[in-house]
């Protein structure tokens, strides 16, 4: 399930920490990057690597926003809806995105292209409104620019 390369990367993370478990978040991120999400089988395998009960891994996965137990779209589009972005139209932008893509926040388009969501404060308050596509920030947006970004996603 976990590739040789990912396992080697997990071992490298474990080597950096005074206790093995300190590398658990990094390991979950690596496995998620490889498979797109964290299936029950993947969590069980991570549990074996870290010598933990699978429920201990599950409770960590469910605590953090960035871990996904279900498959998602090829791209994640997240609008910041904290107060600072809301004051400059962040929630309006999210509403337009929902209408354009035909999905609500938390859902994936039927072609599996985009999972839409919203996040609280992405730390770009001086450039509101903004959104995050996968790992990249896109700042000072208006609707035309946001639409252009969406259309450019494969």
């Amino acid at each position, binding site marked *: 399930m976990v590739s040789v390369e990912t396992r080697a990367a997990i071992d490298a993370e474990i080597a950096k920490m005074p*206790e093995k478990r300190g590398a658990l*978040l990094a390991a979950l991120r690596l496995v998620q990057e490889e498979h797109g999400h964290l299936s029950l089988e993947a969590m069980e395998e991570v549990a074996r690597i870290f010598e933990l009960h699978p429920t201990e891994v599950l409770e960590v996965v469910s605590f953090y926003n960035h871990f996904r137990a279900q498959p998602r779209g090829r791209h994640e589009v997240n609008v910041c809806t904290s107060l600072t972005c809301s004051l400059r139209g962040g929630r309006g932008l999210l509403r337009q995105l929902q209408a354009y893509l035909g999905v609500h926040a938390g859902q994936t388009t039927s072609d599996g292209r985009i999972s839409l969501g919203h996040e609280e*404060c992405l730390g770009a*308050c001086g450039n509101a409104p903004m959104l995050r596509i996968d790992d990249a920030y896109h700042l000072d947006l208006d609707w035309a620019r946001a639409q252009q970004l969406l259309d450019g996603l494969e």
Partner: protein
Amino acid sequence: MGHRVPHVTHYLTEHFADDGYTTLSGFRARGGYETARRVLVEQSPDDVIGTLKRAGLKGRGGAGFDAGTKWSFMPRDGAGPSYLVCNADESEPGSFKDRVLMERGPHQLIEGILIPAFATGAATTFLYIRGEYAEPARILQRAIDDATAAGVLGSNVLGTGFAHQIVLVRGAGAYICGEETGLLESLEGKKGQPRRKPPFPAERGAFGRPTTVNNVETFCHVPHIFARGVDWFRSIGTEESPGTTLFGVSGHVERPGLYELPLGTRLDEIIFEHAGGVRAGRKLKAAIPGGVSMPVLPAGHLDVPMANEFLREHGSSLGTGGVIVMDETTCMVRVGCVISEFFRDESCGQCTQCREGTGWMHKLLLRIERGSGTEADLDVLEDVAGKMEGATICAFADAAAWPVQALLRHFRSEFQGHVHAQKCPLPESFEI
């Protein structure tokens, strides 16, 4: 040494427009790492802590505790490892200063880490960065790798014989991991639920070892204090709160952005002179001085110097220095709705008052905003906030309660207007 350095009052960001400053060679060409090398060669750990205490550097993560005093809490018996933790989990709505400090000055941060690492005898610094900050994490990892390859970090730091490594750790999306003990739990690969104190981290911190946790900006000030001297540092800012800080200005201003200014700069000066005033010539209604957890101040109370000793008199606090500005169109009940939604979503769920109270407050605020609230709801809201304050393991419940209490204190008539009109009386307000 200090007298040969030019007197600048924007020292953190002085070179941020210069791309070369982000590279190891460019940083060294501007004198980078010379201060750390000189301190490690010429001073003892006690000297370093003494200098920091005299400088009076206050932590820039929100609590504003004296940094030198915090370092002095670390035990010095030398039995087993101790750690430094750099809190780069910036997640407070309104705050974006640490992201810019890491992106534009990664080596400034590393130099700022080396000096307290030496002073506290820490073998390793864990730099815990929020998961959303992929780009700053990439920039920092490259800077750490370059510094390690060049002997700035490693078994013989800058040729001084001191050994230190920095391990970058990425979070996974949880605001509470910015709370220092929540961060430590997360660092250990667990849910980021805050610990009861005592024991404090200096006694039992990361992996059960003595640990000091400081914010990114706090570290970044340190080399400048040692390069230019205590007198220079204390000549900037106020007597109780020396130095500059990065004010992140957002919301309804003409020029949102980051401004490095002395602590004690007046809030209205920041809004009107530096950030260009309120957008489109509208009137100012209110401002939050330091991120959403800090109590709001109405227009008319904004001639306050931005330092904790002055903000306290106005019932607020500096927090992270994230100034959020709201113009006359802003519905303050909606402000409460958005803020309480954030705290409801981000409560770690460990304490009942917080887990239940944040959601309860959000429901009440939403009901009032939608025009179906009653006068009694206002009293219940006040009561719930009051019962959350000071009743939980960490300060998250306080942070959720304070903004609601302040909104009711300063804008109660607007809340009552919603109840009596049975709708929002400010239709032009921002969308929620």
